[in-house]
């Protein structure tokens, strides 16, 4: 049938025009190449990157903490959908199709959700205290009678903080805590070290079929060859690993527009054979649901999964960075005020009457004391 269509052949430079394909060949003929066997096409068409653009962002809550679809509420117990019967899960050829997520997490009871909140806020508190601790000059440690004032000032300014270097998590608490809550206690966690994470996953697959590896990295680290090697090895060697990419908008000062031109990191996964999803990283339930399901399937199917959690880095890259040099304070404030993972979860908790202002104040007081050096930092 297709053979009888009038074909317009572009004349490729240096080549004679092609003859029409013989109509005697069976119409269901498929390519036999060992490298790929998708159907033949007689139209020269470059796949535009936009085909992959806009992998949607999975979320459970809106910014005011409303759960938008009951089936996604982690407090609801759900039946596991058998992935082999899901038409989209393993065989889907359409890059834009996404199988509707059916999380199979067990119920996240109230105490677990409160634990999520306390952990996120404790992390935030820890960040404040330890960041200040790194910054702090300890008075009196260098003062000796012989020094001039200027020399003393210079020496104390230089290295007398408690910590040499610190990186905060401001704005990204949802990604860390939501995903961590979805893991098992025996799972292995790698921060960076993408290829090593894959090797570890391979080894634990041989040793124990119930454990998973999760590997965290940023959208900047995803540009390194390590990520390419990690994705490809994980897929070819069938490793139970969840790659968790925190896309927070910046790699130190480099914005995403200078880091990549494709549709983020999630779009790369299918290229390697990884089922991939993009989630709202500031929605701790979305992160939890996605990580839980990815982990379950990674172990069940011995294959890697990719989660790209979209979020925003509210703090500086580290204590050696001042981000006002490359982004506006307005942009930072927007995210801090309009879409913060802790705020969204607190709104959810308040809606359910699981948390109130009194508990908030009590927790703020008690959580500070759990962090080292808290007593040395002025409130």
């Amino acid at each position, binding site marked *: 049938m297709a053979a009888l269509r009038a074909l317009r052949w572009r004349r490729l430079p240096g080549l004679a025009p092609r003859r029409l394909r013989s109509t005697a060949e069976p119409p269901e003929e498929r390519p036999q190449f060992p490298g790929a066997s998708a159907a033949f096409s007689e139209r020269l068409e470059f796949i535009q990157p936009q085909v992959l653009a806009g992998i949607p962002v999975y979320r459970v809550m809106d910014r005011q903490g409303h759960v938008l679809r009951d089936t996604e509420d982690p407090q609801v117990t759900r039946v596991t959908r058998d992935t082999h019967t899901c038409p989209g899960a393993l065989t889907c050829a359409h890059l834009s199709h996404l199988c509707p997520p059916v999380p199979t997490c067990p119920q996240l009871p109230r105490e677990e959700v409160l634990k999520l909140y306390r952990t996120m806020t404790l992390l935030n508190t820890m960040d404040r205290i330890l960041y200040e601790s790194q910054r702090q000059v300890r008075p009196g440690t260098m003062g000796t009678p012989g020094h001039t004032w200027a020399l003393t000032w210079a020496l104390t300014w230089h290295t007398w903080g408690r910590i040499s270097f610190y990186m905060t998590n401001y704005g990204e608490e949802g990604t860390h805590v939501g995903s961590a809550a979805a893991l098992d206690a025996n799972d292995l966690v790698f921060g960076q*070290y993408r*290829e*090593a994470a894959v090797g570890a996953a*391979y*080894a634990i697959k041989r*040793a124990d079929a119930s454990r998973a590896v999760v590997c965290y990295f940023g959208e900047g680290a995803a540009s390194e*060859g390590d990520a390419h090697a990690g994705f*490809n*090895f994980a897929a070819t060697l069938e490793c139970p690993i969840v790659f968790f990419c925190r896309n927070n908008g910046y790699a130190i000062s480099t914005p995403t527009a200078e880091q990549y031109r494709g549709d983020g990191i999630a779009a790369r996964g299918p290229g390697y054979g990884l089922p991939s999803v993009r989630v709202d990283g500031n929605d701790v339930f979305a992160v939890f649901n996605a990580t839980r399901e990815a982990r379950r399937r990674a172990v069940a199917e011995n294959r890697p999964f990719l989660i790209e959690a979209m979020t925003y880095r509210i703090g500086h890259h580290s204590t050696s960075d001042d981000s006002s040099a490359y982004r506006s304070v307005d942009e930072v404030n927007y995210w801090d005020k309009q879409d913060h993972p802790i705020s969204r979860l607190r709104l959810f908790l308040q809606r359910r009457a699981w948390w109130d202002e009194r508990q908030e104040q009590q927790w703020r007081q008690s959580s500070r004391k759990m962090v080292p050096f808290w007593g040395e930092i002025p409130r």
Partner: protein
Amino acid sequence: MNLFQSITSALDNALAKDPTAVIFGEDVAFGGVFRCTVGLRDKYGKDRVFNTPLCEQGIVGFGIGIAVTGATAIAEIQFADYIFPAFDQIVNEAAKYRYRSGDLFNCGSLTIRAPWGCVGHGALYHSQSPEAFFAHCPGIKVVIPRSPLQAKGLLLSCIEDKNPCIFFEPKILYRAAVEQVPVEPYNIPLSQAEVLQTGNDVTMVAWGTQVHVIKEVAAMAQEKLGVSCEVIDLRTILPWDTETICKSVAKTGRLLISHEAPLTGGFASEISSSVQEECFLNLEAPIARVCGYDTPFPHIFEPFYIPDKWKCYDALRRMINY
């Protein structure tokens, strides 16, 4: 057995003894481009002997990850010339894993094997001897055998060593060198040089293929000059056996070091520097280094490039007459 068969035998022993041990790299499944892994996949299964994608960085990184869980990882890099994409993984990850975690974690059960050295027609990218790059990296071990018997014992020691090891295999000897080699496992200790022949006048040090060259030079020196040479195979490049070398030079007063790798920054310079510190007053002549030239490894000019027995003999003669 020849050299590649002795390697296969060592790997066979390792996989038999240690159920966590796995072998991986490019083309290892069918037996390897140098036949070092022939028969192992059939014997131990495809989850233990398997191909990886073409990515040295991935091969070594993946191997580090396996080793971190405590399993034994035996990675093959197809030619030592291709090890450089994995340089970051070796130097920044493998070598520093234990140190940076305060011994909480380590990748000591990682061994990386690679064919090494000149082969007659290898040219720029199938002939290199990169041991000097890795000698500069605390945290790993670098080992180079001279023969099948040595290779099996040293490889088994590398595999069992609690540090990540790089094991370079002289590819020109894969088929050419044949010896009686036990089929049972045995170990040859690392960081111990071997004195192959004692002598009083000149110490000659080499490793891998070049050991056979200096053995021949020692015979020539004895016959033509009446000079008795002490011939030493260094065997482990890092950490190297300073004691054996220095003791020998203290006795003979003359040292000749020879390697195929380029002269500048080659491992002979490390040995030379350390020996002159330890044995300065014992030296009768400047330490001689007979090495490859400071150029890429040539194709058609290989016979002129390599430190052959005539170049070594010439250097020895100048040392004797100094």
